[in-house]
């Protein structure tokens, strides 16, 4: 296509102007690509990360979204604790196929300590799927203060089987200064699961409760104070991943008895529940909804709400992207329009040696579309690179696997939009090219 060659030569003849225009177009496209892919990658990552965890999450009354985020994605602070009898009742409920307790409140080097039981390691995304959390080496904990490490936690903490550690108080490092006295021993290390639990340390619920029972008051996680009002309203005495001094005393007595069931009956942060069927899931949800002690939430529904928020954010950024696209189109128009005079002389030469009006109009349109499409290509590369870098950082910080992938549904738009902008920006210059007066341009006298 000769028009393409001519257009390319025209662009190459004005390298600075072309480069500036390309940069503006590329940045506009990069913004859109980054926002769309990051949003999609984040949503997919969250869905993937929350995939293995049953149908219902039962936890303290309060923000249902925060309950899901803190329990399944280990993001933010737990809403509060629920009384252990709720877990016991769920475990014995015929409508429940599997109930897994979760107790939180400590960390080791930023990796959250998750108190749970062996059933956690049987969680899977579907009945046919393999368990999500499988041992790479060692075994599952069998006694209190034995720990199984997520793959990333093991790598980052540099702990191996047989190593010992003492957890720090609080779900996040720096929240509280004290280390617990209880020494934990690593007995197993998990394979990567592509969930935030890769950066978790698993032990028994009793280990978590015992640590807090012995911890100096006030032991409730600092950030849990935000939820005092809510949890008080729910009729609970204590908040946070750990028990407060009064309950600690109460539990201390329980531990002294060596009564594991009593310890469970103390406090847990949440319970992951796999009901036997869809109807039972709804019944359970309704029971908790009408009750006052705890709430049951469908993670999918809460994540849907979270995605709505993300999408709202994306819509705003997309709007910014549209504005950037308009600016890019104007820059493109300006670049082509400002070169009109020199281009018209060239176009007149082309007409003089036999090019039709249609041909010279095409040369200009191809030129603007070429810039738009090259800009789009560069913008996509830049957008992917930025999205991948941000995704990597999010994954590094949160352990949510944010993967930037190919999105066939947005591909046509990401190409079509710059194409249309190129055509739009080139319309007036192309019309001028169409109307160029050969004799006037070639023989100005």
């Amino acid at each position, binding site marked *: 296509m*000769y028009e393409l*060659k*001519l257009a390319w*030569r*025209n662009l*190459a*003849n004005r390298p600075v102007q072309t480069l500036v225009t390309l940069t503006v177009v590329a940045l506009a496209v990069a913004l859109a690509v980054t926002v769309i892919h990051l949003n999609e990658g984040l949503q997919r990552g969250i869905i993937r990360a929350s995939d293995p965890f049953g149908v219902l999450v039962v936890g303290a009354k309060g923000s249902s979204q925060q309950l899901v985020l803190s329990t399944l994605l280990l993001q933010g602070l737990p809403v509060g604790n629920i009384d252990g009898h709720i877990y016991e009742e769920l475990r014995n409920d015929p409508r429940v196929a599997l109930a897994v307790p979760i107790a939180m409140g400590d960390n080791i080097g930023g990796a959250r300590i998750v108190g749970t039981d062996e059933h956690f390691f049987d969680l899977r995304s579907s009945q046919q799927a393999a368990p999500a959390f499988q041992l790479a080496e060692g075994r599952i904990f069998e006694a209190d203060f034995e720990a199984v490490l997520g793959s990333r936690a093991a790598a980052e903490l540099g702990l191996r089987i047989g190593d010992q550690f003492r957890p720090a108080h609080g779900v996040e490092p720096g929240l509280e200064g004290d280390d617990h006295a209880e020494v934990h021993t690593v007995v197993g290390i998990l394979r990567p699961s592509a969930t935030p639990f890769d950066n978790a340390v698993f032990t028994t619920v009793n280990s978590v409760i015992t640590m807090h029972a012995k911890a100096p008051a006030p032991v409730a996680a600092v950030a849990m104070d935000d939820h005092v009002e809510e949890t008080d309203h729910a009729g609970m005495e204590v908040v946070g991943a750990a028990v407060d001094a009064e309950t600690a005393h109460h539990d201390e007595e329980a531990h002294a008895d060596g009564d594991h069931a009593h310890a469970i009956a103390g406090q847990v942060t949440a319970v992951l529940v796999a009901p036997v069927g869809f109807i039972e899931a709804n019944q359970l949800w309704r029971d908790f909804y009408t009750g006052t002690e705890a709430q049951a939430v469908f993670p999918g529904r809460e994540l849907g709400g979270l995605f709505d928020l993300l999408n709202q954010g994306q819509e705003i950024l997309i709007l910014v992207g549209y504005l950037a696209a308009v600016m890019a189109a104007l820059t493109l128009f300006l670049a082509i329009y400002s070169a009109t005079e020199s281009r018209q002389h*060239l176009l*007149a*030469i*082309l*007409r*003089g*040696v*036999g*090019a*039709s*009006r*249609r*041909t010279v109009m095409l040369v200009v349109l191809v030129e603007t579309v070429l810039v738009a499409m090259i800009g789009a290509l560069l913008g996509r590369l830049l957008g992917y690179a930025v999205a991948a870098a941000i995704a990597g950082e999010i994954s590094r910080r949160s352990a949510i696997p944010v993967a930037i992938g190919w999105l066939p549904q947005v591909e046509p738009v990401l190409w079509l939009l710059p194409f249309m902008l190129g055509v739009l920006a080139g319309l007036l210059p192309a019309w001028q090219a169409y109307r160029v007066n*050969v*004799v006037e341009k*070639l*023989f100005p006298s």
Partner: protein
Amino acid sequence: MDVVLQQLRHTYAASGLEARTVLMIDDWQAASGAQILLRGVSGSGKTTLLNILAGLLPPTTGVVRCGGQSLYALPENERDRLRATTIGYIFQMHHLAPTLSALENVEMPLVFGRKLNASARTARARELLDSVGLRDFHRHRPMQLSTGQRLRVAVARALAAQPALVLADEPTAALDAESSHAVMDLLQESCRRAGATLIVASHDPALATRFDHVVDLRNGGLHEG
């Protein structure tokens, strides 16, 4: 290709200025294969006449026939195509495309005329550039060439499509005598070999001896010299 002009008038009417009729040619014709020198002082209308013959400037009134065909009865795109295939035009200022190489400039009419495929086009353009003594300048841009070299590229471009009518506007104006002879030799010999009609507009008296047929453009009319 024979050229016939009938009742040709061309008037320039600029706003605020009095209209000026530069061409008033009642009847004139050039036989196919003829080589004609069109003489006239600056501003006499030589370039205007060549532009009309090239299909670039519709006359105010009158008929222009090229090869029996009324040029301005054709739609504009057909006239464009004629310039790419049948009429070669050497502009006074050469008007080479500054963004293209010498070779690409010569290829242009072949592209627009769609006469040859890409490799044949390039071969033809190379051959022409070699024949005008620019063997080592195929890749040079017009800005990298001397005036004489640019003219030679323009000549090669005008001859590229093997046109039946070649128009040249002051082809020797910027050349020394030696270069002028070389270019005119090339132009005349090429047209003679191809049987093409050649019309050269010039006020260079030295060229008169090279042409059997000389016409003077005076007061808008053509007069045999």
